[in-house]
């Protein structure tokens, strides 16, 4: 039995029947971390002692049959942009290198309450700014399918850890593709939930009107189990949706026959690698074989999505990152003689190049004389992007698109050209300004590297995405392909 690659419900069944213990599961993933992470470098922090202690407590719960949930005793990791009380949280920035949060994020609190076992924290692009995890201030993370290639980003460490059997699931953050791109590059499942479905309390803010927390898992069913625990209203986040959380698992086995699958024609244009397009076309045939009706739809403002996304992101990020000044927390410049120097030097030394570029552009595009042409214009076109999705969902139930026009690229390939890096997210960024949910899942290989597809639903339609994704995984094996490690 290959413990690290069990899916969550299999592992839970073995835990309940006392065939394995949480301690054994936890030790199995820790062994994988010891063996594989010197090369992959998915983890920034691993707290073995705390993990083994939580596993012991989970085993006691299991023994007594008390407060059992589908996640009791299951080891997980968390992107290091999400606050963990008492466990170092760096956001992969020098500025937060020593930060030990005194409070807990809501999503992690709910997982710990459910009895899941926290192993540690995952590498990312600094402050979630990037698409390759090369912008981490500490080290890049490598793709388990080919260590010369990037894992995607910014939740790169989380996708690698799940793909490499170093944890059973991970929490990532998605502001403009940061869960979905690494999921596709590493052959795992990643969900960007509806904006507000999961509380953002304790998520270090990048762009507050786009930011979401979501699961990275090896199966669609596992993603449903994790979302079930972390979703729902929260008195500490006034943008968390008040709607009750549906039973996601109940949706999984509903038949998909007769559902309408929309292919946005603007997403199937030239520029996609041949192997990626072939994998997508094959996936579409699978959905047809499952009885879904395939139709073409239009999202006419797609060519403007990337510009809208980055303009608004820069503006929101430049405001959000003003709080990092070296006074109440963070690594402060030591030689500063005046308060002005303290701010200037702390931020000069603490932030990497991409963070500085984005703050500078945010401040510039918000400044008098440029605000109307850049920021306000982007907010108007954002309205059109949102209307595109509303109209498309009058004609279909779910949209299918590529995740990325290419498979995972090589380390160093795009790092010197920020705009080329931004274009990696061309198929992913439109959903965040619109607020709708999107699921990335494996759909094949090209040149030995994973290819992902993206299913997009209307607001609050996570159940439908799980239903369609799960139906696909019942008739395909891509999600059971594991990297040669």
């Amino acid at each position, binding site marked *: 039995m290959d413990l690290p690659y069990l899916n969550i419900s299999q592992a839970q069944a073995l835990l309940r029947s006392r065939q394995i213990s949480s301690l054994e599961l936890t030790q199995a993933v820790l062994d994988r971390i010891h063996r594989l992470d010197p090369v992959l470098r998915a983890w920034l922090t691993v707290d073995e002692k705390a993990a083994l202690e939580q596993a012991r407590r989970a085993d006691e719960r299991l023994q007594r049959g008390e407060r059992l949930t589908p996640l009791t005793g299951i080891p997980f990791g968390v992107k290091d942009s999400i606050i963990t009380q008492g466990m170092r949280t760096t956001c992969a920035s020098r500025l937060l290198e020593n930060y030990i949060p*005194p409070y807990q994020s809501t999503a992690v609190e709910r997982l710990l309450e459910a009895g899941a076992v926290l192993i540690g924290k995952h590498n990312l692009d600094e402050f979630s700014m990037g698409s390759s995890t090369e912008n981490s201030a500490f080290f890049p993370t490598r793709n388990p399918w080919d260590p010369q290639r990037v894992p995607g980003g910014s939740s790169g460490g989380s996708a690698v850890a799940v793909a490499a059997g170093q944890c059973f699931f991970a929490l990532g953050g998605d502001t403009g593709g940061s869960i979905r791109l690494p999921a596709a590059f590493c052959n795992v499942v990643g969900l960007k939930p509806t904006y507000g479905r999961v509380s953002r309390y304790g998520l270090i803010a990048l762009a507050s009107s786009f930011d979401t927390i979501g699961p990275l898992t090896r199966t669609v069913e596992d993603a449903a189990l994790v979302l079930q625990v972390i979703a729902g209203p929260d008195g500490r986040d006034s943008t968390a949706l008040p709607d009750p959380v549906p039973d996601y698992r109940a949706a999984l086995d509903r038949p998909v026959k007769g559902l309408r699958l929309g292919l946005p024609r603007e997403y199937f244009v030239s520029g996609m690698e041949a192997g990626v397009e072939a994998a997508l076309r094959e996936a579409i045939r699978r959905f047809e074989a499952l009885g879904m009706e395939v139709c073409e739809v239009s999202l006419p403002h797609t060519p403007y999505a990337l510009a809208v996304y980055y303009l608004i992101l820069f503006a929101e990020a430049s405001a959000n990152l003003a709080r990092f000044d070296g006074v109440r*927390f963070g690594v402060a410049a030591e030689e500063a003689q005046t308060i002005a120097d303290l701010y*200037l030097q702390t931020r000069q030394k603490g932030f990497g190049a991409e963070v*500085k570029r984005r703050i*500078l552009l945010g401040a510039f595009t918000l400044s008098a004389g440029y605000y109307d042409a850049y920021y306000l214009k982007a907010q108007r076109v954002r309205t059109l992007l949102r209307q595109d999705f509303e109209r498309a969902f009058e004609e279909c139930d779910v949209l299918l698109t590529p995740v990325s026009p290419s498979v995972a690229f090589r380390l160093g390939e795009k790092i010197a050209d920020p705009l080329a890096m931004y274009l990696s997210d061309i198929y992913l960024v439109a959903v965040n300004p619109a607020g709708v949910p999107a699921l990335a899942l494996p759909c094949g290989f090209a040149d030995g590297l994973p290819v992902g597809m993206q299913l997009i639903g209307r607001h609050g339609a996570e159940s439908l995405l799980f239903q369609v994704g799960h139906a696909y995984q019942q008739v395909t094996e891509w999600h059971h392909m594991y990297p040669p490690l």
Partner: protein
Amino acid sequence: MPEKGPLLTPELVQHIASLVQIGLSEAEAEAFVPQLNAILEYFNLLQEVDTTQVLPAFLLSGLRNIFRPDQPELGLTRQAFLSNVPQRQGEYVCVPIVLEE
């Protein structure tokens, strides 16, 4: 509407950096100029969209503020709040000189 061609110069980049309280070396500012201008030029793409009849999205979000009951509850201790302060004396946060003589 922004003019065509490069907008930012090293001097302007330094000025913006001072507004957002980030120290920049001359070399950093020089390196940023072509990168930032390439991104700003890409954004000009939006000018071709007619938005005269379109409201900005932040007026249409449909989100309503959500209030929780105003009940007293225990928050963090002072010790927890101060636990990450880089420079402190007892229960005070230390900063360099704010006002000059």
